[in-house]
């Protein structure tokens, strides 16, 4: 079990535009954490800070009590696996080799039976078995996403960060992947942090939801029942909705009217 703490984390790409402002929360139980919030609110920036892809300009992030400032990127890679929103390969390798790259930290020069076994299990879990020897570039966007996810899983890290892992998936695979991540985090005790735009996926599968709002702050953190409310949705997204309870979890039904304030329709910057 791994504990991640963010203490007053701020980040700016340049002096004038802060992206994250004084973000403080902690993830001290294994489980599926979903980060939701409008475009450009700093969700990707936040997870990249946890992953040391970006260095916070202020504040501190600790993993199991150790500040990631004091860790090398290799050490961070032993704790945290990261699956970016879109991945590509300039020179396409077969799916099996593409996933094997995820074993980089655990592998010696030779590929062992153990490495292959884990890769095969990951392919089995993500329904990629039949594509093992297909070139990565022959696949569709949804298949790419599942390969990238498999590459994250085979790293066998206690923390897994996913940037919109379900964005290109069809509904069946969306539900399947979300269900799988929840099940996996519960049973193996890993922490899965996922950025998600689908409120209903988040509401149904997340253990905890982190709601971000402009200008790069955490609005609230809590269970789906606590944070998926009409008030929060209106405040964050500026859109009216109705929350119904379906199969024991809140379900958001959007209305066609914007929230009270017309100016609330602020498209923001694309992230």
């Amino acid at each position, binding site marked *: 079990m791994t504990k991640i703490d963010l203490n007053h984390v701020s980040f700016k790409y340049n002096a004038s535009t802060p992206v994250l402002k004084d973000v403080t929360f902690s993830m001290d139980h294994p489980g599926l954490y979903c980060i939701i919030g409008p475009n450009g609110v700093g969700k990707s920036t936040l997870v990249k800070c946890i992953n040391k892809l970006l260095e916070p300009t202020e504040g501190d992030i600790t993993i199991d009590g150790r500040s990631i400032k004091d860790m090398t990127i290799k050490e961070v890679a032993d704790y945290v696996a990261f699956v970016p929103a879109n991945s590509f390969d300039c020179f396409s390798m077969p799916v099996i080799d593409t996933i094997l790259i995820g074993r980089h930290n655990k592998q010696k020069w030779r590929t062992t039976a153990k490495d292959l076994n884990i890769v095969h299990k990951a392919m089995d879990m993500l329904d990629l078995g039949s594509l093992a020897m297909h070139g990565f570039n022959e696949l569709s966007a949804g298949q790419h996403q599942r390969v990238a996810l498999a590459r994250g899983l085979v790293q066998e890290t206690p923390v897994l960060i996913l940037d919109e892992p379900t964005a290109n998936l069809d509904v069946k695979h969306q539900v399947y992947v979300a269900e799988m991540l929840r*099940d996996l985090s519960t049973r193996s005790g890993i922490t899965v942090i996922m950025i998600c735009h689908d409120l209903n996926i988040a509401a149904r599968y997340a253990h905890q939801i982190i709601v971000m709002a402009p200008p790069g702050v955490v609005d609230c953190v809590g269970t789906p029942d606590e944070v998926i409310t009409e008030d929060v949705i209106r405040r964050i997204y500026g859109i009216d909705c109705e929350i119904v309870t379906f199969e024991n979890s809140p379900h958001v039904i959007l209305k066609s009217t914007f929230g009270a304030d017309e100016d609330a329709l602020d498209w923001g910057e694309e992230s």
Partner: protein
Amino acid sequence: MEDYEADPRISRIVSHKVTRWLSEDADLEQQEESFLDYKRYVARKWVFMAICVVVIVMVMGFAVTYGTYDIGFLESYQIIWDHLTDNITNTTKDHIIVNLRMPRVVVGIVAGAGLSVAGAVMQSTLMNPLADSYTTGVSSGASFGATLAMTLGMTAAAGSQAIVINAFLFALIPTAMIISVSKMKNASPTTMIMAGIAIMYIFNAFTTVMMLWADESTLAEVYQWQVGTLAGTTWNEVPVMIVAVLAGIIAVQLLSRKLNVLATGDETARALGVDASKMRIILLVIVALMSAAVVSFTGLIGFVGLVTPHIVRIFIGADNRYLIPASAIAGSALLVTADLLGRAILSPVVLQVGVVMAFIGGPMFLWLLMRKNSRVWG
């Protein structure tokens, strides 16, 4: 998800698959089988390399046989064997094969290996299928450095190492340039190559200017470089070149797994614990050294580094752990074959190897440019 129809509850299937994932040794039998499959797939790569080695040995035989003094094909191998075992029977033939014809072949092998590995590394690190030491201007930088050393008479003072060192120093200028272009946002692969070609022109112009101060004999030598040639090579040049190229290939091979990680993109690489920018600089400096060592003795042989990795990828795929050694071997085979063709095709007129490679590589370069949306581009 084959059993969706049978059991529509996703949670059941998920639970089953996660159980399999969490279990230590699931499906041992299937695992054994897939491991064998993978081994067969890897074995194919070794077969490709073995075939290339055979080609090199064959072409080497032809290359040392070919010439005005008639020596048989098999006899050539016999003479080389006798020389190696210190059992020389015919000193004239021994001299012709070992001292006159062999250096050309050996330099061809080393140059082909060095340039091809340089190309493979540049393509993977820059994620650019058009990159090699020629198209990025690294070779031109090295060539200018070497010309400078020669016309200033540094050779007399410090020997051929001085040329290589100077070539290396000047090869670092285009290298630094490429690294900064690759950091630019929105720099497409083509932008990078355009910058490389601009650098190439600038350095080639400088080289031409240098030639104004060169004396007759140096001029002839410098001219040959600008075409790219294996002619006039002797055993004296081999050691420096072999040491630099071999050291480079070994270093790159040791980093080849990191190169695979690097080729997945900077963010993924960092997330996997590889510092992408640092690794890129290390690899490109090694490339500059290898290119400088080759260019100092053979001049500007273009396109070997560009073409070879692409051909190799068609046969064995893009995994750098195999791409690097296979490119080295295939590049050697390609260059010695091209040199032999150049000598044979318009005989007795000799086409320099750089010209032959341009005839092979130019169209290939165009073809790569045209099929932008192909697999090579992703």
